[in-house]
């Protein structure tokens, strides 16, 4: 039956064939290996590296802010927070419930979380708790495994040691929101959670922030760090060194006390801001970590408007404080002369007009014959009505523009208001109406449509003090660390009072000196007993419209419509070292009694420390 020879041959052929097929398949595999390992090597190496190497951005340390004496006004503190990665959890509410069994989470925390969730940066974790204590850090750490979507983050957080006392001078930072993120250099901010929101923090954001660093780390499949492969250190942000003198700031703050108002002091020789107070203020620190909506609403709805930066963003009628400037304009334009006298019966009438424009001084009988010098000292409105009428609004506008009114002073913040210096052209454009001569009269005494910022007033007063040079106001004096400082030189402002005839300037300055020292000076009482010469001008401005949108409390309406008291001045008279504006909102009485005494104390404090000559 069986044929061993045939069967042996058959088997041998089949075995050979099978062996050949196996060999071919093996060769096919080798070919595929050759393709993967030799031909596609580069591609797979790149993929392998992408697998294992993650690049972790490293946040630079934000630059600090110092006053001129080296006092730290903005610093960085280590703060631990718990953050939730929304992408890693399905039910956030349940997560927070469970988390609250480990760490106390207040209603405020929850509300703030909900709020930030609405305006978060995509893919970024949102803090549920900030400023954890050491004990809380430990409490969470032992329970970490239960919360894969929650991470403990230690980071340097901006802290403002003096809270509300400097908030309006330096601004503050807050968490980056979606809108800001869109506009940012996202690569450079890859590790940064906060950004300057207001003030210097915002204006110098790039300088303060620095440049991001990178760390290349090898991670395993579970994303655990295996080792650090490469590190490019971040470049820390530069420090800001301010002109600001914190002692003067404290002095100014204590002068104002509970009153609402502004005190700004500058160095007339370079425009450096020595003190910048807007009262009341508020503590910016909760804004850094995230403020709860209740506290925010309380701040936002307070009738005192503490979040409103009166010094930088507030516009007020300048009132009589601009009479020296107007007098100079009168002299320069030739509409008045030193010897020219005007009869002041207590009112002024436009030729051919029935209406009587009252002198706001309460001298019912008027001052009689008044010359330019006297008109400044006693703040005679009639004289300035007459001068303004003859000058006309557009000449007035032209000269006042050279003093910087109607434009920003160039302070190194973004929020500065430009105020309003009216002209006939402005009225045509903005109001679609012709200019009436009567309106010139109001502007001629610093009222009417004219709205100025305190910065404009102090800057233009400094120009009178230093002989006609207007500097851009600057908060920051230098950037960088102590031994590598980059000074920011003083910059002249765009519009200048070119070539003021010295005799005109002297006339106005003398008058301002007599406001302070003269027998009839409106600020004489405030400055009695000083052992240096000062110059200034008081003002009392009617509140035409309240400067901000705060809600009015019916019981306080009366108070809110009271006059604002102003004083601008400088000292020492011959070699000015400080120019100052004081503005106190809604007071009884004028600038002589309400603002000038504050200015005197601020000047005293500064000269006490820096010498009188």
């Amino acid at each position, binding site marked *: 039956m069986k044929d061993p020879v045939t069967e042996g041959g058959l*088997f041998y052929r089949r*075995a050979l064939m099978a062996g050949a097929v196996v060999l071919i398949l*093996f060769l096919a595999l080798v070919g595929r*290996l050759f393709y993967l390992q*030799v031909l596609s090597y580069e591609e*797979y190496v790149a993929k392998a590296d992408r697998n*294992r190497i993650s690049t972790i951005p490293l946040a630079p340390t934000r630059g600090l802010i110092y006053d001129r004496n080296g006092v730290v006004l903005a610093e960085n503190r280590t703060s631990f927070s718990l953050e939730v990665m929304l992408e890693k959890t399905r039910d956030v509410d349940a997560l927070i419930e469970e988390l609250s069994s480990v760490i106390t989470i207040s209603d405020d925390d929850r509300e703030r979380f909900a709020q930030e969730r609405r305006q978060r940066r995509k893919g970024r974790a949102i803090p549920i708790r900030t400023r954890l204590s050491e004990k809380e850090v430990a409490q969470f750490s032992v329970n970490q495994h239960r919360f894969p979507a929650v991470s403990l983050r230690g980071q340097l957080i901006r802290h403002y040691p003096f809270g509300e006392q400097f908030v309006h001078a330096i601004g503050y930072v807050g968490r980056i929101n979606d809108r800001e993120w869109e506009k940012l250099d996202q690569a450079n901010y890859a590790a940064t959670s906060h950004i300057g929101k207001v003030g210097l923090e915002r204006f110098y954001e790039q300088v303060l922030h620095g440049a991001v660093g990178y760390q290349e780390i090898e991670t395993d499949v579970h994303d655990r760090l*295996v080792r650090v492969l490469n590190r490019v250190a971040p470049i820390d942000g530069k420090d800001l060194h301010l002109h600001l003198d914190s002692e003067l700031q404290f002095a100014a703050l204590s002068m104002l006390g509970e009153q609402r108002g502004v005190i700004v002091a500058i160095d007339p020789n370079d425009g450096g801001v020595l003190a910048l107070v807007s009262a009341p203020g508020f503590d910016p620190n909760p804004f850094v970590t995230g403020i709860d909506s209740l506290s925010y609403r309380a701040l936002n709805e307070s009738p005192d408007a503490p979040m409103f930066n009166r010094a930088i963003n507030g516009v007020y009628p300048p009132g009589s404080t601009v009479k020296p400037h107007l007098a100079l304009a009168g002299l320069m334009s030739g509409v008045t002369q030193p010897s020219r006298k005007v009869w002041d019966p207590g009112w002024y009438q436009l030729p051919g007009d029935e209406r009587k424009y009252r002198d706001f001084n309460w001298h019912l009988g008027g001052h009689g014959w008044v010359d330019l010098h006297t008109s400044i000292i006693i703040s005679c409105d009639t004289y300035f009505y007459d001068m303004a009428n003859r000058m006309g609004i557009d000449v007035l506008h032209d000269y006042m523009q050279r003093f910087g009114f109607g434009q920003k002073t160039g302070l190194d913040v973004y929020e500065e208001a430009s105020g309003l210096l009216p002209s006939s052209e402005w009225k045509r454009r903005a109001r679609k109406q012709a200019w009436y001569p009567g309106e010139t009269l109001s502007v001629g005494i610093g009222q009417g449509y004219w709205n100025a910022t305190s910065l404009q007033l102090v800057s233009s007063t400094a120009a009178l003090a230093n002989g006609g040079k207007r500097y851009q106001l600057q908060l920051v004096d230098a950037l960088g660390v102590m031994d590598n400082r980059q000074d920011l030189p003083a910059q002249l402002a765009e519009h200048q009072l070119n070539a003021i005839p010295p005799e005109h300037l002297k006339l106005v300055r003398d008058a301002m000196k007599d406001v302070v020292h003269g027998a009839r000076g409106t600020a004489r009482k405030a400055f009695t007993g000083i052992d240096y010469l000062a110059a200034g001008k008081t003002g009392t401005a009617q509140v035409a419209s309240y400067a901000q949108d705060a809600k009015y409390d019916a019981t306080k309406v009366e108070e809110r419509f009271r006059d604002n008291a102003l004083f601008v001045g400088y000292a020492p008279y011959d070699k000015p070292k400080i120019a100052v504006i004081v503005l106190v909102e809604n007071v009884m009485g004028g600038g002589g009694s309400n603002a000038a005494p504050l200015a005197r104390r601020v000047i005293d404090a500064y000269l006490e420390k820096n010498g009188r000559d």
Partner: protein
Amino acid sequence: MTDFASRIHTHKERHNLAWRLHLDTTLLTALMLLMALALGIVYSAGGDSTVNKQLARLAVGMGVMVVLAQIPPRILKLWSPAIYLAGIIMLLVVEFTGVIGKGAQRWIDLGFFRFQPSELLKLAVPMMLAWYFAEKPLPPTLKQIVVALLLIIVPVVLIAIQPDLGTSLLIFASGFFVLWLAGLQWKLVASSALLAAAAAPMLWFFYMRDYQKQRVLTFLDPEKDPLGSGYHIIQSKIAVGSGGLYGKGYMQGTQSQLEFIPERHTDFIFAVFGEEFGFLGAVLLMVLFAFIVWRGLYIASNAQDTYSRLLAGAITLTFSVYVIVNIGMVIGVLPVVGVPLPLVSYGGTSSVTLLAGFGLLMSLHTHRRLLSS
């Protein structure tokens, strides 16, 4: 006896201890080399405890191999139907009472030992078919082919419904190889291939589980599901490809050491090998496998009776199927099916079965002159 003895003594291997233990030195050397390599790479992929366990299993496997090598082929042949029958019965037992393991019924729990009857079938099926054809004139008749196919299909189906696609595939292959080596007519090979092609859609719709279908779909387009089942293929290709010509060095494979390769010490161990030893290392490993296959086919060709030939050939070809399917899967030319890299992948039963198979091969080889007389 003296006659036999003189024959043995005239053989050049007569003083060889291995020969006296009925071991084939050539095959043994190749296997030892392979296992040494395997332990090295298992250590790289799995660490101390894994390699120790594997060492123990390989020792058990070697023991089984040596023991089986002592059993003369005629005894093996005599027992073949009984072993096959026992295997089928155990499969049925598993089907009804089996212990659940890895989501599929595959085990019999003997208390001290978990036994996987499907592993036994890997050897029992070719033994049974070799037995069936042993005394028949070859090539087989159509009727014999049908009987043989039935003998194959029954265990294949029983294992397929466990479900264990990889094993049933290997068992089908082992049976089919006997049939093929027995001289299955070409037109029947062709028509069964057609039949298989026709059965594939049926298999797809009526047998395959969703995850298995997913694996096939993923194989066709791995990038479609990079985090799911495509992950295996993508990652193992990255590991192998990034190994380059020379490899990253032993224990230096970032993808394997950083655990990006899934199942890196079991089914995907070749990816670790390819990454750490590169193309040259992988080719060397392929050469070693090829050498073992060549030796197996050499043994089969030199066997002196039909049973030995068919069994030796089927065991060898099945071994090569392991190699081709596993490596093909790891380098992305075949779908992911649970087939280990023979003797290299970490895993107990498959190593023991494979070594048992080599034990059979050695028995067939070393006893042949005794039988021939």
